[in-house]
């Protein structure tokens, strides 16, 4: 970012200046928040009963939502990347919709699907499944907003690695399941990991859909972002401390997602060696 570095010399100065402004725009608010944290009270604030309950609930639901995303997201990415059918482009756009939709809109949509008077809610009630105001509702909200992250990063990786190795594997007699398990998935493993990490982060930060669809009750539906929102009413110090935890998690996630390259250079060779083994 400094003008003296050799790369920066190739850029017009105003580009660098604007880049600095842009970086500060992102970094300053985080610094401003860190300055407001009541550090001597930080540990007591984040270990209060309600904060601990919110943190544990958030971790539990986000992990479940991520597992759900992997379970259905991997097949979705495979279908979108390896097959072609009428309406595929439309399907891809629709599947990615939660990525750009305001979360509160997602919450309303979920409400009209799984709510008591929703599209499926009535049938589910008849089966004795009640979703409203349960932890299940939180997981559904989180999975809804997090799924596109996994599908998007995995589909991109699948298209980039191409089908050469899969074709070779198939000619050597590997069945569909073997090709998928021994060639395709190992090739895109880094992308799968970074996609899952991003999904987890998105699930952890979910707020709008949860608030609209799941409600807010300590230990059941009140996740960390909802706890921050509520504490802000009476105890701004607690809200800032809890917010800072989410910032730390976000930093860790970005770090992990960056470290795991979407497509490792060595991965294709390693995978093809394994696939070529008799």
């Amino acid at each position, binding site marked *: 970012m400094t003008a003296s570095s050799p790369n920066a010399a190739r850029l017009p100065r105003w580009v660098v200046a604007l880049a600095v402004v842009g970086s500060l725009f992102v970094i300053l608010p985080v610094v401003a928040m860190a300055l407001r944290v009541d550090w001597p009270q930080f540990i007591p604030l984040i270990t209060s009963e309600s904060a601990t309950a919110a943190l544990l609930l958030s971790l539990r639901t986000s992990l479940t939502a991520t597992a759900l995303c992997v379970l259905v997201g991997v097949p979705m990415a495979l279908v979108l990347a390896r097959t072609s059918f009428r309406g595929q482009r439309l399907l891809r756009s629709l599947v990615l919709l939660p990525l750009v939709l305001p979360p509160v809109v997602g919450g309303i949509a979920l*409400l009209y699907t799984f*709510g*008591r*008077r929703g599209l499926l809610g009535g049938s589910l009630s008849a089966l004795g499944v009640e979703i*409203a*105001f349960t932890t299940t509702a939180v997981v559904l909200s989180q999975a809804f907003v997090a799924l596109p992250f996994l599908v998007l990063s995995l589909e991109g990786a699948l298209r980039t690695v191409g089908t050469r190795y899969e074709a070779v594997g198939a000619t050597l007699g590997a069945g569909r399941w073997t090709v998928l398990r021994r060639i395709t998935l190992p090739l895109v493993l880094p992308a799968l990991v970074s996609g899952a990490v991003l999904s987890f982060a998105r699930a952890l930060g979910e707020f709008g859909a949860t*608030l*609209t669809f799941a*409600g*807010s*009750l*300590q230990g059941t*539906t*009140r996740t960390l972002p*909802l706890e921050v*929102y*509520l*504490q*802000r*009413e*009476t*105890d*701004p110090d607690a809200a800032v401390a809890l917010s800072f935890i989410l910032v730390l998690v976000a930093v860790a996630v970005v770090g992990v997602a960056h470290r795991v390259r979407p497509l490792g250079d060595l991965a294709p060779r390693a995978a093809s060696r394994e696939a070529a083994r008799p």
Partner: protein
Amino acid sequence: MSGARLTSGRGIAAAASGAAVLLALTGCGATSPDAAAGSEGNAIDGSITVFAAASLTAAFTDLAGQFEEAHPGAEVTLNFAGSSDLATQIGEGAPADVLASADTDTMGRVTDLLAADPVAVATNTLQLAVPADNPAGITSLADAARPGVRTVVCARQVPCGAAAAAVGESAGVDLTPVSEESSVTDVLGKVTSGEADAGLVYVTDVRSAGDAVRGIDVPEAARAPTTYPIAALAGSGDPATAQEFVDFAAGPSGQSVLRSAGFGAP
């Protein structure tokens, strides 16, 4: 959090007050400074920003319109949010001229920033809201506490939740809510959508929800109404217009608007 109208008059107000200063300076030989100050004080034609509790949205939108009609040239920009949010924003230096909050505690948090003591302009009472078809057959607060009934209230951290807890205690009813929401509008939303069987909200919320919900009176709530105070803020750029708005809300026109929205007399 949503500005009902965008501020556009602030620059004009600054220019106008600048012009007033110029007039006072140039006319210094003819008029005494007291007279100049007096005439400026009487002119209610500035722009003010009013921060009001979310539950006042309909009533204050109406009220601001009437105020502008009564004082040609005056312009009122409204900003509605939860009282606590508003107090925090004002504490952080938001440019507000008037604050109307949904409880006295919240007003107390900004005591140092007020131009004058707050005036009570309205009261509100909790009521039990049930979906129009009342699926759980609720007729009283005790019904809402029955096992299997999904009752939603505000969390204790927000004014409507503190009031709900007080009502539950004085009625001797142990409510076990399925959700404790951060705002009264979220509680109402859960009832209007039919997700909840009952919710404790304000009388004015039941009225604004129309046919979607039915209100059931809770006697204990009627005995302990919530008071809505309003006050001009010390940091106002136009103290005269700000104070006039406060007086207008407390006066006959303001009171009639608030009464027709379902608020009680202070």
